[in-house]
């Protein structure tokens, strides 16, 4: 097992290992809150209310979960072929921009415009994800390096030039307050079926994607070829699998999923590409995939948990806790999932010491 496999190995342990990590992370976080003199019990209550207390909070949870599931799937799919895609954020940015442009430029009725804009988002993300795949397979560039650098290229190209220049909003009179692109057409807005809730089509789209990814990886031989490449690239190649092509395909799908996440944010929440759009969801996808063991069902579960924590964390301000508390919980949970591996050598040594006294020096 490579160190990277170990990072993603939560799936091989029982599901409760990941669940336990999340619960322990919650517990530790609240000890931290207690230590800082805040009311932890009230905080916990607010957290739950913010996540589940009625249609409004549930809608928030759903919107955030949908995006996290997609970026988590993105990391999981890349990992299937053995690549670590840190570039979700860049792929998400291009997807968001493509959705904003398509949602403005195309004059279509809603049932056609929404899918068209989402497809544009997926294609843009796929293109940005395809690049590190090609660089890796044909030029030997490590994907961790290339995806991190491509994130910055995307951020600066889009925020520093496209959104500030060629694609900047023109129609508005007070352009200072309206940085970003023109708003998308109302027909491109994701429908919100429940009044008073921001619940939109994002979560169903994400769940459908998760089901499709699960089906591809476990039921189709194409997915098997991807997994074979990830499990043993040399053996896969020797058996006749076109490894380079498969890696590039998987990276394109990985990018498409992150791009789709960006599209959902624009069509569902922002309704335009804002002047600065640094969501961090692309990076959160790494945490979701790690805790979900890089499998589609695991990613869905982890996405829901962190979506709920993020939605609930906004209410924590009422007891004076900063909403970045959600990130604290997420970070501790990732550490705990990795922890058994981190501490295993230490435990082995301790156990050896406790048995050794009987042995001769």
């Amino acid at each position, binding site marked *: *097992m490579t160190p990277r*496999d170990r990072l993603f190995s939560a799936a091989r342990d029982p599901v409760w290992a990941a669940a336990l990590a999340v619960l322990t992370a919650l517990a530790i976080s609240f000890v931290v809150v207690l230590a800082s003199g805040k009311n932890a019990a009230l905080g916990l209550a607010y957290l739950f209310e913010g996540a589940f207390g009625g249609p409004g909070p549930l809608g928030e949870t759903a919107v955030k979960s949908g995006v996290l599931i997609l970026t988590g799937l993105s990391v999981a799919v890349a990992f299937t072929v053995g690549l670590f895609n840190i570039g979700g954020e860049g792929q998400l940015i291009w997807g968001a921009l493509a959705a904003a442009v398509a949602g403005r430029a195309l004059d279509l009725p809603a049932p056609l415009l929404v899918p068209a804009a989402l497809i544009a988002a997926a294609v843009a993300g796929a293109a940005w994800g395809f690049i590190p795949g090609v660089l890796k397979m044909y030029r030997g560039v490590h994907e961790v390096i290339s995806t991190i650098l491509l994130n910055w290229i995307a951020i600066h190209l889009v925020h520093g030039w496209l959104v500030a220049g060629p694609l900047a909003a023109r129609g508005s009179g007070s352009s200072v307050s309206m940085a970003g692109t023109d708003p998308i057409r109302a027909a491109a807005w994701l429908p919100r079926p429940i009044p008073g809730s921001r619940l939109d089509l994002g979560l169903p789209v994400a769940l459908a994607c998760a089901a499709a990814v699960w089906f591809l990886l*476990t*039921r*189709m*031989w*194409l997915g*098997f*070829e991807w*997994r*074979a490449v990830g*499990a*043993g690239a*040399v*053996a*896969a*190649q*020797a*058996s*006749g*699998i*076109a490894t380079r092509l498969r890696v590039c395909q998987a990276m394109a799908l990985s990018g498409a999923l992150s791009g789709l996440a960006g599209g959902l944010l624009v069509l569902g929440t922002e309704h335009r590409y804002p002047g600065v759009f640094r969501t961090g969801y692309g990076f959160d996808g790494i945490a979701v995939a790690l805790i979900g063991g890089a499998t589609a069902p695991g990613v869905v579960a982890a996405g829901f948990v962190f979506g709920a924590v993020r939605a609930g964390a906004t209410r924590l301000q009422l007891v004076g806790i900063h909403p970045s508390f959600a990130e604290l919980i997420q970070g501790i949970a990732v550490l705990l999932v990795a922890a058994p591996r981190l501490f295993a050598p230490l435990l082995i040594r301790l156990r*050896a010491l406790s*048995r*050794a006294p009987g*042995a*001769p020096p």
Partner: protein
Amino acid sequence: MSALELRGIVKRFGEVAAVDGVTLSVRAGEVLAVVGENGAGKTTLVGVACGLYRADAGTVRVLGRELPPGDPRAAIEAGLGAVHQHFMLVPPLRVWENVVLGREPRRLFALDSARARREVAESAERSGLSLDVDARVEGLSVAAQQRVEIVKQLWRGARVLILDEPTSVLAPGEIDELLRTVRALAAGGRGVMFISHKLREVLAVADRIAVLRRGRLVQVTAASEASAVQLAEAVMSASEDWSSTPTSTPTPSSSSLPRLLVRDLHCDDARGRPALRGLSFRVEAGEVLGIAGVDGNGQSELAEVLTGLRRPRGVLELDGQQGLGPRGWARNPGAARKSGIVHLPEDRHGRALCLPLTLEENLSLGWQARAPYARAALIDRPGRRRKAEELMAEFRVHPPAPLARAGDLSGGNQQKLVAARELRGGPQPRVVVAAHPTRGLDVGAARLVHAALRSAAAGGAAVLLISLDLDELRAAADRILVLYDGRAAGEAPPTASDESLGRLMLGQAA
């Protein structure tokens, strides 16, 4: 007092007991051979003795001292030295540097290289091992590297040596030399545990022979009282069909086009040095061509060229079809497989199996897009399961659990898995390239693989059997082609003597 004493050793992996209550001792001055089938627990037993594995029960004593479990360092310090199948040497370093690595003699804060070099040379000389202590390991033959490993253990003060299948990597002449060395070490008062599959060697070198079967000790006999036939019976489980010696006759096709034609083939090895230098031969359908030669004379590269993993220059034809060039069948592994070329590679772990995947997944690897493994774009799960169970039964893969991970099988069972997939998993092959297909396999499994190769030939395939083991080539091949320095040094019938084959292998005219 025994030099090495194993008492009641039990080691389980999951639910399977790889070693199940073995008690065994090696006396000072004797060679104890341990034989057994693949998965009989030999390597696991070695691992427990050296402290690489922590036993679930039982104790290990070296020179009367009990070792703490799972502590390799303590085993070395107690005087136990093991030479594993995979050498642990640093290629760019010199021989003496490799020997002292990790416990270098020091003078003040610097390496006392004069003393280290002298001590290593003395260790080698005292045990009669010929070794140039100043040579760099990367330039040494496999046999010389093995001698470095032995000297390393001796220099560290090993009183008990464990040699895990030491002959599997050696050429015939080198084997005799190793056996002499082993006898000399025992004569010098050391205890030697000699793990092997090859009964002939074991009978030649051992004082006593222990037989393991399915993790249990079946018998321990004095070599003087043992016979090859009786040992073979003890080694094989009762279910093995020991009598079915395959004897088919080749059926060369009458057409003038050979199945496989190789003419003036040139290619470089992975380091860019010429490996094949004008190799020419032909193989007919239905024929088993043995490829002999000392390791490193172009065999690996030949296998890679034929299976599309390496690009050569020259002529390569399959039933008259061009193999080279952008449309040739040897342009990549996928094209080679589509043209009916299957491969039992030398490096099972890296090249043949995806160890984290399941047995049924590994059995479908390479055929995954065709029936019965797939239907259109989907995996045909019931079809794949049925086929996997059929293949595992035919090749007696143990355990026959379709959802077990390939990495959890013993080496021999992994090889059976590969043989099953390549020879029977897909359509009837046109060319079989088998590189050391029985290396590390027990007698029963080796027969199974030979029979499968034979039946592939009987079904019309041309089989290339690359091996270092002349007995294997004699038993399975119709003709033996000897490679020397990337060229065909000559050809011999399977009845040729060791001497005449040996001369060809050393590049001398027959």
